[in-house]
């Protein structure tokens, strides 16, 4: 069911250069346009006919488990530690060492499985996957090939159509499985000295491989699905999921076919290190395959790397041709047995077992639930709730401001998203780094709400607050004399002066062109440097003009 819903996504592609910019997905075509038209000239027009292409995108995502120690050893897990400083005997595969499963990693995988609506296998198994590589010390990776810890789940995600925040659709991608496995170390190839340096700090760190079924049809969808997964992982705390630090690694499987025909040959795109690049890489690959096929070429079942500088995918040097991983059960680990409330043996030491129900009861609100609650509690729009969750800490910031001000949440959200957030983005700051705290923000909005300052003045105050000089909004207002002119007589005088100076406009208004009134209001505002209440000004002007 989920699959059908997801596929009917209008993911029918045509070649952008044949059908013009008005094609179904005009966005993100910038770099492609040049490449397409250059090659497009070679292709006889019409050869391809008008048969549309259906792109199919599936994802394999490796999420590093957030845990103090590695999956099978006591070594610490830490990003950017000195090379080979976090390596136990087991991690270096010293002969005679044995794996000991880290309970925390199991719990993280169960949590993630539950959050992704998976069925959790009460018995799962570990396998060895063999290949020789310098950063894989044992010559095999311990993974869950036969029976993974979680299977058959789904992930709902939303994306906006044509980049319009107001038009959001919700889609679902099926989760095939989640498996626990070891991370590898890192190899650094020094070509000039023709040597390879190996850092085993990462070797043996716990990973969750989340396999998404090919239910997506474009880069935007893949990006939205991964973004939602990332938020879920971060909410659960099962992974920090920072792509830049390699805690979330996404490989995309991409193919195209004509409707009604079997799926095309797929390629695997690797080396994608941000969500933005994921969208680009997938869209590039789809377009590349379409062009290749329409040019009479074939698609090879190959691994390609995304080159973020060139914005394209290139074939990866195939390590050893077709790999036979010679899977084998891991004999040193008994089957991983999980319990639920029903199957939990009475005399079992609770420290030694993982209870699925216990974890289920303690799951935090997932992003989708949090969003729905925000919409309901504060009367904000759904797209606002997305924007709030999209930024780490922004929801809390918003809620704190709401708590401390009389301003309606619906108005507060505008200040948060349009003013605060854009400022933060401009300066590449996180919410936590914001120089304006929620308390100051609330104070400011209170001044506005109590009509002590105008919104223009509020923005001026905010500009001062950014400097982080420790002044309160009220101090700034006083210092800069930004409070609204409370003296009606003074304001009347200013209004009169404006009217006197704008004869033509006054004539126009009197002739019935009421729009011109706004210009006069604006002039009064300018005259008062934003310190006048526009509603009051309007009243005064109208009164004077009708005299």
């Amino acid at each position, binding site marked *: 069911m989920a699959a059908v819903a997801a596929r009917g996504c209008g993911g029918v592609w045509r070649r952008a250069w044949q059908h013009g910019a008005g094609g179904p997905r005009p966005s993100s075509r910038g770099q492609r346009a040049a490449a397409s038209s250059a090659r497009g000239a070679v292709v006889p027009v019409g050869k391809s006919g008008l048969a549309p292409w259906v792109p199919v995108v599936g994802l394999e995502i490796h999420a590093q488990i957030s845990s103090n120690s590695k999956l099978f050893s006591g070594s610490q897990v830490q990003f950017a530690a000195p090379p080979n400083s976090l390596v136990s*005997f087991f991690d*270096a*595969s*010293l*002969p*005679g*060492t*044995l*794996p*000991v*499963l880290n309970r925390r990693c199991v719990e993280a995988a169960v949590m993630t499985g539950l959050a992704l609506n998976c069925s959790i296998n009460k018995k799962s198994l570990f396998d*060895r996957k*063999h290949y*020789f590589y*310098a950063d894989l*010390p*044992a*010559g*095999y990776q311990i993974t869950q090939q036969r029976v993974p810890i979680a299977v058959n789940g789904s992930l709902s995600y939303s994306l906006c159509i044509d980049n319009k925040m107001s038009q959001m659709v919700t889609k679902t991608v099926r989760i095939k499985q989640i498996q626990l496995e070891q991370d590898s170390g890192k190899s650094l190839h020094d070509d000039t000295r023709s040597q*390879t340096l*190996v850092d085993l700090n990462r070797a043996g760190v716990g990973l969750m491989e989340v396999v998404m079924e090919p239910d997506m049809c474009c880069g935007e969808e893949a990006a939205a699905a991964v973004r939602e997964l990332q938020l879920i992982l971060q909410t659960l705390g099962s992974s920090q999921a920072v792509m830049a630090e390699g805690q979330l690694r996404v490989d995309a499987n991409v193919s195209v076919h004509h409707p009604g025909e079997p799926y095309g040959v797929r390629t695997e795109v690797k080396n994608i290190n941000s969500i933005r690049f994921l969208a680009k890489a997938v869209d590039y690959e789809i377009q590349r395959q379409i062009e290749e096929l329409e040019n009479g070429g074939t698609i090879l079942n190959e691994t390609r790397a995304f080159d973020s500088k060139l914005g394209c995918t290139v074939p990866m040097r195939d390590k050893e041709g077709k790999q*036979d991983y*010679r*899977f*084998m059960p891991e*004999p*040193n*680990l*008994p089957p991983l047995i999980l319990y639920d409330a029903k199957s939990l043996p009475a005399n079992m030491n609770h420290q*030694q077992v993982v209870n699925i129900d216990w974890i289920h009861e303690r799951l935090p609100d997932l992003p989708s639930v949090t969003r729905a609650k925000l919409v309901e509690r504060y009367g904000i729009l759904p797209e606002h709730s997305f924007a709030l969750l999209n930024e780490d800490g922004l929801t809390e910031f918003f809620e704190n401001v709401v708590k401390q001000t009389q301003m309606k949440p619906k108005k507060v959200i505008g200040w948060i998203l349009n003013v605060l957030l854009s400022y933060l983005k401009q300066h590449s700051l996180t919410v936590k780094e914001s120089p304006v705290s929620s308390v100051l923000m609330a104070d400011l909005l209170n001044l506005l709400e109590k009509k002590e300052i105008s919104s223009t003045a509020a923005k001026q105050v905010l500009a001062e607050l950014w400097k982080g000089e420790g002044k309160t909004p009220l101090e700034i207002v006083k210092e800069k004399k930004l409070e609204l002119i409370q003296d009606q007589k003074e304001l009347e005088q200013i209004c009169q002066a404006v009217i006197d100076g704008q004869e033509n406009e006054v004539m126009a208004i009197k002739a019935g062109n009421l729009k011109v009134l706004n210009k006069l209001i604006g002039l009064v505002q300018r005259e008062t440097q934003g310190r006048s209440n526009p509603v009051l000004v309007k009243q005064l002007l109208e009164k004077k003009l009708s005299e």
Partner: protein
Amino acid sequence: MLRASLREVSAALREGHVTPTELCQRCLALLKSTRFLNAYITVAEETALKQAEESEKRYKRGQPLGVLDGIPIAVKDNFNTAGIETTCASNMLKGYISPYNATVVQKLLDQGAVLLGKTNLDEFAMGSGSTDGVFGPVRNPWSYSRQYKEKSVPKSLSEDEESNWVITGGSSGGSAAAVSSFTCFAALGSDTGGSTRNPAAHCGVVGLKPTYGLISRHGLIPLVNSMDVPGILTRCVDDAAIVLGSLAGHDPKDSTTIQDNFKPFELPNLPDVSKLSIGIPKEYHAPGLSSEILALWSKAADLFKNAGAQVTEVSLPHTRYSIVCYHVLCTAEVASNMARFDGLEYGHRSDMNKSTESMYAATRREGFNDVVRGRILSGNYFLLKQNYENYFIKAQKVRRLIANDFLKVFGSGVDILLTPTTLSDAVPYMEFIKEDNRTRSAQDDILTQAANMAGLPAINVPAALSERGLPIGLQFIGRSFQEKQLLTVAKWFEKQVKFPMIQLEEVKRHSHDVFQHQKSASFS
């Protein structure tokens, strides 16, 4: 003194008849004069004396750590020992000094045992003769016993020494020879398909393979993880029980050890077997079983019958598939376990530096002998995607059938199975090397490997001397985790048969020729 049992010498230490240092020095002296046996790869003289000294202080304070305190022991060279070379008798690990102790080694040291050295074996424990290691073959001490000399008629006087010495069996031949030649009071072996029981039988010592999961494998360099068990070699069954008690129990570093607490036990002095049911598996009457072992076997059955035990013939019908099944499972795990030896992190690294891949290939070619390489090749073949179902999965199913055979027999009320341990007594080295390792292993493991497939405890008890004056042993196989019952029966049997003590001839005169041999025996 050196011929005493572990229990006896422990009492002597407690009573002050001998000090740990004296004991250690005497063992070291005998060890040196029996170097030609090639039982030890590394002798840790310095650390052993230091350990003995520490032990002596404890005895002087009146606070020995227990029955093992001050007892000289030896450990097969496939257990990691911190600070002492661990080679697996392979070029791959020659010179390798592990940074940690295997759990079993640590436990022995924690209880005050004195580690004399590391014993010889087949390379990576792959073999049944202790002849296929890079440090040369181990010689069976019985080759130099009065018993053997009197019965074996030398073809000519000059031929005597070099052509008549017999193998120890293996792969824990070094450990068996060490215990048998009185250089230590107990030794650790490992047992994957019979590697402890087989040399125990050939060397006339007790060899115990405990239930899989009872003793930690952490630090044992694996052959087949799902079958490997640390083995115990001692002079008598009581000693085996003592060592078992000091080693058994859960190890957080080995997830395959059982969680239940293990209670060390003492065996009754007058064991009673009258209420027992002894099973004689007919399939163990295998082709090639020597007539004298067959006779010994039935004599043993009669002993039990006469003592009031119920003795019945039972059937383990899948035993005959055991060899081929073992071959597939063993080589598959070997292929996997050996993948880590790539020259990067530790061990031998070839000078070849054209590329990482060529370095791997050269390292592994130089580091492993033909036996190891052969098993890696077969194992990888069985694990290939196209072969996995047909070989590996099928072998796993057969393994289950073999294990079920035992379950059925034990379920029918049989307590202990009585079988031969080997098909014949030890053969001369010159005979032994006529066949290749694979053929020999297949033949020699036939009576022992099924217990490994099923994870069951089994023990070799020396029973008699053959016509040639060499030891023959019988095997008892028990129910999982029923070591106490198994050892009780073994002890009873041991008392009945009164196996003769080895009478080692003056050994010094053999000393010179062994070193020549050692050099020539190295593999290229």
